[in-house]
């Protein structure tokens, strides 16, 4: 068991979830309520990581933030190391591929709140911030949580984009999914087997939680 890789995966999952919590809430809520031309295009763009091979996402990240690019050079000058093949680069990649997993369940949950309920809150004297905190979040939290659990589970299993953007640097970018591949390549099937079984159990547990949550999301309130 590669504990370094395992804890790195957990850490990557938690950081991704922390970044995507506010993103999921605000982008999901915006897409649920806003009416504008081009909304379909924005939704399609945010859903792209669902259908694109992770290697394609990884490729575009490499050519846009790699060491030779302007963004990559600014990053390197500021932080003293490259964005790609670093933990931060991995977080960026992970956040991008998980956007639809965090945003879509939150969006569905906000959409399930009847417009009159938000209007009733406003005419009851609740400011927009109070409406969000006291009415919308208590009604949409299952959807938001479901998005975060999905994001976490998906991050643990992500392979392609991690390999493209992160490589396999122990303690920095070598996640448990990469470590399994690494062990199989080295004919160490025993270690690979333990790690694979651990991932399997964890994924099953999170999926169970997701199904439980999803039975409560999408039920229209009011």
């Amino acid at each position, binding site marked *: 068991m590669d504990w370094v890789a395992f804890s790195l995966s957990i850490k990557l999952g938690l950081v991704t979830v922390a970044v995507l919590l506010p993103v999921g809430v605000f982008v999901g809520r915006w897409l649920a309520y806003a009416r504008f031309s081009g909304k379909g295009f924005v939704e399609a763009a945010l859903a792209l990581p669902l259908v694109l091979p992770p290697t394609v996402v990884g490729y575009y990240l490499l050519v846009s933030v790699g060491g030779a690019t302007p963004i990559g050079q600014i990053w390197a000058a500021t932080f003293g190391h490259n964005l790609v093949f670093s933990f931060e680069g991995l977080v960026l990649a992970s956040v991008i591929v998980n956007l639809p997993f965090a945003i879509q369940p939150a969006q569905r949950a906000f959409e399930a709140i009847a417009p*009159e309920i938000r209007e*009733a809150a*406003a*005419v*009851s*004297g609740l400011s*927009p911030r109070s409406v969000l905190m006291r009415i919308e979040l*208590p009604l949409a939290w299952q959807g938001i949580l479901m998005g975060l659990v999905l994001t976490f589970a998906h991050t643990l299993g992500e392979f392609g984009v991690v390999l493209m953007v992160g490589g396999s640097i122990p303690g920095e970018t070598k996640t448990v999914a990469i470590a399994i591949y690494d062990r199989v390549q080295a004919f160490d099937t025993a270690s690979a087997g333990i790690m694979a079984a651990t991932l399997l159990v964890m994924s099953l547990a999170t999926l169970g939680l997701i199904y439980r949550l999803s039975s409560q999301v999408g039920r229209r309130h009011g």
Partner: protein
Amino acid sequence: MADDALAVTLQQKGPIPLDLTLSCAAGDVLALVGPSGSGKSTILRSIAGLYRPEVGRVSVGAATWLDTSRRIDWPPYRRRVGLVFQNYALFPHMTALANVAAALGHLPRQERSRRAGELLELVHLADLHRRRPAELSGGQQQRVAVARALARDPDVLLLDEPFSAVDRVTRQRLYGELRELRRAFPIPILVVTHDFDEAARVANRMCLLDRGRILQTGTPRDVLARPASVQAARLVDLRNVFDARVLSHDGPLTILDWNGRTLQAARSEAHRAGAKVAWAIAGTQVLLSRTDLDQADSQPNRFSATIRDLVHLSESLAVTVVLEGPDAPVLSMTLPAHYARRTGLGPGSVVTVALMPEGIHVMPSEGEGQADLA
């Protein structure tokens, strides 16, 4: 009292056309009545700040909530308005008490639950305050919605079809409670409904709307029995509307020529002799008898007719008759339910109909009516 009145002016071309000015004094209940798409709910939403009309002004007493010419547009949470939604829109995750307390943000935190309890008591729900909306009946949810709307200590109370989702028995009880509320909270109250009987039961003033314009404002009794135009008469479902010509005015009566028949109507000064007019009579103002057939057509307002159709309703009898003559006009009326059984009337029976002069309402004929209204 007049200082606390609500004054509303709204104008826009679309998507929902609006062109109206209305006011409601404190202590008055104004019913906004009209068919779907007449703009009733949009008026309420504009007052509450949930809808922004192209051009408009909304003021309550000295406070101006909306004035598009001065770019004033207060958000809903700053307007002191209580709004009861058609489907109540209670907060599903909160108890009845918390729903009401949520609208008490203007009070110190420790006083909110006491005041919410008082309001629930006012709407006769004191013992159900721990229940969530899903555990309450339609009528109970409506009361929570009313308590929540009153919690804000509103300057205006708005009710959007508040009785449409409850059964008939509950509705009757709620009508009485709304009348009590009017005494307890002397503020302007606006009720949207498409039911004329309901408007007459709960409101002391009524505004008849069609496609965003006001056709008539007055007491429900006046609007329903004395429509200002043929269009208004059709909207209030007055079926007996006919054309006639004014012959003369004679004391308390105006004499009409109705395609050769002579009609005496309550005096209507507005129309000079010779003018083309329309007249209407409510179904309740038409009498029917079988006994004085010989007097029909020889006296004013009495005509012989044949029963065309007879429908038994829950408490009354809807009858249509065809009068004799080349124009064969059809009159609709309602009679007590026992009448047909007692007299043995049925389709084809020959009867005499008598039109009460005081029930005949004269108004401008259709073409001229539009000009008069403008």
